[in-house]
């Protein structure tokens, strides 16, 4: 199958799934026992105010009409207004999204680079020191709870050693000029190097905590994949052609070994989004994850539904991209 038609088919499936997601979120937020109006106004509001609020929130219409309203709003990008901030949810999301993206990108880069490297070295130098170290590192990576490790590292690096900050994206007394919303980019664009390095320091621990378990997964898959590839017949052919070990590994083995790793990266991005929730909470990172947690704890329903839909959308898009990359990398997959 051509790569183009493959992409179209997957896009169509994705749209179907997103539609289903919207329906589910709608259903979940409407069948919950708690009454949002009661949550906003408190228990002792006079009936007329309750009715007025109910009307304002559109809760007095039939369930079907509410569904149509909701879907119509979605298509227009209207996710409702946050009960906590009274702003459109979409505005809230757009404000916090860049911070999460910055963290996610930095973590996935960290995880892929370190993970692929460790997995590669582990396979090539099987049963040597680097292999043992990498395997221990990896199994701890998927076993240690991220939220706990984060706190322990804050304890060590902030409380005891004072080397790294304990949270936030940058120090409180620095004011970034907001151009793109991405602090690192903005600081470079506006030439504020002080802010840049400050933001980098703040990025270190969250990146490590968020990326650690992904690094572990990637390293493990890379190791297994590499060991598998190194036993294949075409590696023997490559060596019979007189290619040096380094060329055989980097040009022949690596390309083939990376293929399963690509799917894992997609899966890892999903767990990265999950993990972002915890990491942002611990490090007070002003991102989408923390926004969602706060919305959940304050029962801010529009924000909860808007936020989860948004995350589902991002997650599906990333999976789509990964599927496309996978088909592009492995010609056998296209047919």
């Amino acid at each position: 199958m051509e790569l183009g038609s493959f992409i179209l088919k997957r896009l169509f499936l994705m749209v179907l799934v997103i539609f289903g997601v919207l329906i589910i979120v709608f259903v979940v937020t409407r069948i919950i026992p708690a009454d949002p109006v009661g949550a906003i106004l408190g228990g002792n509001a006079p009936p007329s105010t309750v009715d007025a609020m109910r009307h304002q929130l559109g809760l007095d219409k039939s369930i079907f009409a509410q569904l149509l309203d909701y879907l119509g709003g979605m298509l227009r990008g209207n996710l409702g207004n946050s009960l906590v901030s009274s702003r459109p949810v979409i505005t809230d999301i757009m404000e916090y999204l860049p911070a999460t993206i910055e963290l996610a990108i930095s973590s996935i880069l960290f995880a892929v680079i370190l993970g692929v490297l460790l997995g590669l070295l582990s396979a090539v130098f099987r049963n040597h020191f680097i292999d043992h170290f990498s395997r221990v590192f990896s199994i701890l990576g998927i076993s240690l709870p991220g939220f706990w490790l984060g706190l322990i590292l804050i304890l060590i690096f902030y409380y005891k050693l004072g080397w790294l900050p304990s949270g936030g994206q940058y120090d409180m007394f620095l004011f970034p000029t907001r151009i793109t919303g991405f602090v690192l980019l903005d600081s470079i664009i506006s030439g504020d190097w002080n802010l840049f390095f400050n933001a980098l320091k703040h990025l270190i621990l969250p990146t490590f905590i968020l990326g650690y378990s992904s690094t572990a997964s990637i390293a493990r898959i890379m190791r297994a994949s590499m060991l598998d590839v190194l036993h294949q017949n075409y590696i023997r052919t490559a060596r019979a052609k007189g290619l040096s070990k380094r060329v055989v590994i980097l040009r022949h083995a690596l390309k083939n070994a990376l293929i399963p790793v690509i799917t894992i990266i997609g899966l890892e991005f999903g767990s990265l989004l999950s993990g972002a929730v915890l990491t942002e909470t611990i490090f007070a990172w002003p991102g989408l994850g923390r926004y969602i947690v706060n919305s959940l704890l304050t029962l801010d329903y529009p924000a909860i539904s808007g936020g989860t839909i948004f995350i589902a959308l991002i997650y599906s898009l990333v999976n789509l991209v990964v599927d496309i990359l996978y088909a592009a990398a492995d010609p056998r997959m296209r047919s």
Partner: protein
Amino acid sequence: MNKPSSAADVAQGSAFQKFLHERKPMLDDMKHSVYLWKKTPLALIGTVIIGIFLLIALFAPLLAPYSAVGTDLAHKLEAPSAAHPFGLDQFGRDVLSRVIMGSRIEVQIIFIISVISISIGLCVGIIAGYFGGVVDEILMRITDIFLAFPRLVLAMAFAAALRPTLTNAIVAISLVEWTVYARLARAEAIKVRSQPYIEAIRALGASDAKIMFFHVLPMSISPVIVQLTMRMGTIILTAASLGFLGLGAQPPLPEWGAIVSDGRSYLMENWWITTFPGMAIAFTVLGFNLLGDGIRDILDPRIRR
């Protein structure tokens, strides 16, 4: 009981002997698995750790030196000592006792989640795989929708929607976990339904329900159980994460994630409240992961000789 030495002997032997003889290939396979398991250090260490964990949970009330919920404000926030190896928390409770009793909660959590998620997963998967066609498509799209969310986020949303309690957190995680087993069960169902002997049984008048229950189900259970063991670590971490965020067990339940969260405000001066329950989580998850790795190695056809 004497082992029958020939087919003729078996024919004359008891029904039980016949049963064993018919299942000989499967029993031999299991014996070989156990042999390999004994030879795999990872699997053994993992099993030992899990064993310790289960024993602690079983004998928790006997092992815990003090009450897990009784407060003693006169002695709050004391550092670890001989009398209190894990120290005291902000309410004067012995952290060690809380951790020990918390193991019971963890066992509860993983047990119930396992039962619920496997049940739903097997049902959905077997029905989808067995009937195929439209039923399959619909069920798979539903599964896709659940898979469109990062797992923790979905579990969090469910937990919040259902109001944060331990029970609801367990339900929430189960609602997210079943998809994995559904896929596996479906694959097995597809494999089984195309076997010739299924056609034969159907010709003899067996109903779909009977076939699904007596033939597809036994084949599907084993890969699902294996996958469950390998995912147990993730399940525990998810449950602890919900507890940490306040979306799971509510105070004063000594759930490990919740205790870690408790200790967060006291991290600087009273590090022990956070450290020890977290180590308990890490230790238990490590045990399951080691066992899972070992199982995966044992099942690897290249090593199984």
